[in-house]
């Protein structure tokens, strides 16, 4: 399901002029509205959808890690703790806008229309999970930061075609140390592309902490060097993320005059779990630190805000929880029902037309399969 809000709900683009060393916040950790903050002008239904999607992402994440532990799925990168940044930012996009993800944006991609079983299938080792049909979501990019130049190039192409699509490029704090971060943002600035460069600063690049990635006070301030606005936001505050991202999307779509269209957003947040299921964070960080960040959890935070406004109560939360559990369970069932892709598909998507040598290699594998059977061949 997609939201396709489009309008910024009255968000002033001027929020982007906040000093990139400050951090925009709307909700305090207890869910109350921070003094002077503007709550995005969204319908009750939309607030509930935002809450439900974050809660669904958390539950999905827990189930996915469990599937990996049971040997039902391969290595998986968890997102718990990062729901506010992903859901809040992706909800600021229109359907025709694009997500250019790294590999952890399961929740953002869900908001933009990717099914849960699509995500599951990809991490179950089936490339078909990455074929996103008519959704404007670029396939997962695993090499760190390498998708950032793609987002700039997509924006250049959209400009050339007089389209007003906006490209939301996600990456982590570690990615900001890569050359492709520099080259991508630099092209974004020089060619003034309709791009939102969205950094999910989750404090850890596997085991290397944020302060070892850069001596800069904030990541947001790096934007200055590319001639664009940079803004830091509390990434565990979904309303602040929505507000800031909506403003950046609006600017990307319709900046005029001297104003450059791209923005660098640094969403400050925390990865509760491991980098991937192959990682053990107890080796490099203390539990105390995790607990400290859990006090900022985006889900109870928005829940408290919505309960306070009378939008949520125990009954509604219980209903939502049931429907989330059902939706995730169904997605897992569907994903596990898929049979292995054909071996032919390994060969058929390399080139538009299959070269003779590939045809021979496919025939060779076919022969082995038919002579020995899969069971013997894969023993």
């Amino acid at each position, binding site marked *: 399901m997609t939201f396709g809000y489009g309008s910024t709900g009255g968000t002033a683009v001027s929020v982007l002029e906040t000093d990139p060393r400050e951090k925009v916040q709307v909700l305090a950790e207890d869910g109350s509205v921070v003094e002077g903050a503007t709550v995005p002008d969204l319908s009750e239904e939309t607030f509930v959808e935002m809450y439900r999607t974050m809660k669904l992402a958390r539950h999905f994440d827990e189930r996915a890690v469990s599937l990996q532990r049971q040997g039902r799925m391969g290595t998986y990168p968890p997102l718990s703790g990062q729901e506010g940044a992903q859901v809040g930012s992706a909800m600021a996009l229109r359907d025709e806008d694009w997500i250019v993800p790294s590999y952890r944006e399961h929740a953002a991609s869900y908001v933009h229309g990717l099914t849960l079983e699509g995500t599951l299938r990809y991490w179950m080792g089936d*490339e*078909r999970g*990455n*074929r*996103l*049909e008519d959704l404007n979501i*670029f*396939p*997962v*990019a695993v*090499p760190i930061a*390498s998708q*950032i*130049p*793609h*987002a*700039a*190039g*997509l*924006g*250049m*192409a*959209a400009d*050339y*075609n007089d389209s007003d699509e906006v490209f939301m490029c996600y990456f982590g704090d570690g990615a900001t140390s890569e*050359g*492709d971060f*520099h*080259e*991508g943002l*630099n*092209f974004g600035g*020089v060619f003034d592309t309709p791009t939102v460069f969205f950094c999910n600063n989750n404090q850890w690049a596997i085991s290397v902490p944020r302060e070892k990635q850069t001596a800069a006070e904030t990541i947001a301030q790096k934007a200055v060097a590319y001639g664009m606005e940079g803004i830091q936001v509390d990434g565990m505050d979904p309303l602040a993320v929505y507000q800031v991202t909506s403003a950046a999307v609006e600017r990307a779509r319709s900046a005029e005059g001297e104003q450059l269209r791209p923005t660098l957003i640094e969403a400050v947040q925390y990865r509760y779990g491991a980098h991937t299921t192959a990682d053990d964070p107890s080796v490099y960080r203390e539990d105390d630190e995790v607990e400290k960040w859990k006090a900022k959890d985006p889900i109870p935070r928005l829940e408290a805000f919505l309960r306070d406004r009378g939008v949520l109560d125990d009954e509604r939360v219980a209903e939502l929880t049931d429907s989330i559990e059902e939706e995730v369970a169904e997605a897992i069932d569907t994903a596990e029902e898929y049979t292995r892709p054909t071996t032919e*598909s390994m060969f*058929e*998507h*390399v*080139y*538009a037309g299959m*070269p*003779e*040598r590939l045809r021979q290699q496919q025939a060779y594998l076919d022969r082995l399969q038919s002579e020995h059977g899969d069971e013997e061949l894969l023993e």
Partner: protein
Amino acid sequence: MSDTQNLTLVQAVRDGLKGELERDDDVVVFGEDVGKNGGVFRATQGLYEEFGEERVFDTPLAESGIVGTAVGMAAYGMKPVPEMQFSGFAYPGFDQIVSHAARLRTRSRSRFSVPMTLRMPYGGGIRAPEHHSESKEAFYAHEAGLKVVVPSTPHDTKGLLAAAIRDPDPVVFMEPKLIYRAFREEVPDESYTVELGEATTRREGDDVSLFTWGAMTRPSMAAAENLAGEIDVEVIDLRTLSPMDWDSIVESFKKTGRAVVVHEAPKSGGLGAEIATTIQEEALGYQRAPVQRVTGFDTPFPLYALEDYYMPEAARIEDGIREAVEF
């Protein structure tokens, strides 16, 4: 009969780009110094003036950015033709080439493709500084999802470049800069293509098959002519290195039973090894001598005081041919 112009190879590059820019609005040409300056080798001369900054533009000095943005543009449906100023400077873009340009079709189950033609001058013999002389076609030919093309004549250059730009998959188009201006050839004014994946026989012969490409075609032909009357050498210019025209290679070998592969890239792990192995797999019964490889050495490409020793010249190629024939 259509009109022709007498062009050098680099002029044929320019003419090929011009033809495709005219033919398809989705074609854009960009890179370092390709705009007003017309390219450091003048391969894009006049295109900026003729087609404007939207179609022919300079970029920041950043090879990964150039290839990476080209991947994005191509996925969006454009036909980007980025330039790497020298192949020796392409490595910052290598990750984008192999991790993304080559893989996006597979990764998206063919929803996205990367119809990019990445031009890069390659090869030695031009008395240039370090990093300006390498031949690294094997890097690219090793990568599934890429096509690799190396022209050796002005006529082929224009036709292969047009075919590469129209191809739905990424093509690394390596231009032999040693012969950018070495000779001229009549090239039709109108657009035409030379099909990718097809070798051509530059010289027919019965005694030994010589397989080569790019700048090495000329000294190979010279060697064959020098030996004419004594040894009858068939010279096959492969033109496309991925996918390779195996049928033509094997067919020629079955006729002669002897083969020499000439490339200026280092010997070990070079494409000569792939050709020799395929000949053994496909035509062992015809083989009359070990396959000879006349190649660059397994050393870094030397500065130019020694480059003539490194590059296979006619005399070395003749020596390799004799080895194959006198076995």
